[in-house]
């Protein structure tokens, strides 16, 4: 799947992470931090791939969903550099 997939019907966005590149613990922390404003589902798709689905607790436009996805990627990268 592509790194970002937006579901218009469900009003959610799904992000794909490659595990050797992203650390599971950083993804867990990012998910936990985002869970205040989003419904977050973290799912291990394959051994090397984790999918994270974000759905705003408050409804947003599709454009916002894409921005949110990139914000999550950047946030996870930030955690990796700490």
């Amino acid at each position: 799947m592509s790194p970002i997939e937006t579901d218009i019907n469900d009003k959610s966005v799904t992000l794909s992470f490659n595990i050797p590149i992203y650390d599971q613990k950083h993804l867990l922390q990012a998910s936990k931090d985002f869970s205040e404003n989003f419904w977050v589902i973290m799912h291990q798709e394959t051994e090397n791939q984790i999918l994270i689905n974000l759905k705003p607790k408050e409804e947003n436009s599709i454009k916002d969903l894409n921005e949110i996805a990139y914000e999550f990627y950047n946030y996870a990268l930030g955690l990796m550099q700490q």
Partner: protein
Amino acid sequence: MLKKIMNMDFSPEGTSITLTLSKSLYPKEAINAASGSMSAKAKINLGEDNKENYIVKLEPKGRNLGLEAIGREFSNELINKSFSREAEKNEEQESSIVADAIKKYQIALKKSSINRNISRIQTNLEELRHASIEDPLGISTLWGENP
């Protein structure tokens, strides 16, 4: 076609939702804790499909609680509990590392103190040996001999 969102499968009757949770992602304690938090809102059934996944079936208790909402709320709880569990585990590991380091330091300290004492005893013995040889007036006698 049955509805499915990510790892959430909706039952054909629309009465329950089943979550498939990877064991490598979620510790059992976190699943138990999340289930405990959600038990007021849903009937929960825990199981496993094979060695890789836990299966959690949620059936909302209230009619006004949507299946997706229950599933998503459980997922958020699970992420929070997993993170707390991970943090606790790290804290335990750090405490154990510090305790080990202190123990090793104490042993090293003890060893160095013992070595210092041994060296002091050796010096004293050496001094005693020299002192017994020196007898400028010639009045020393061997132990047990009559003077």
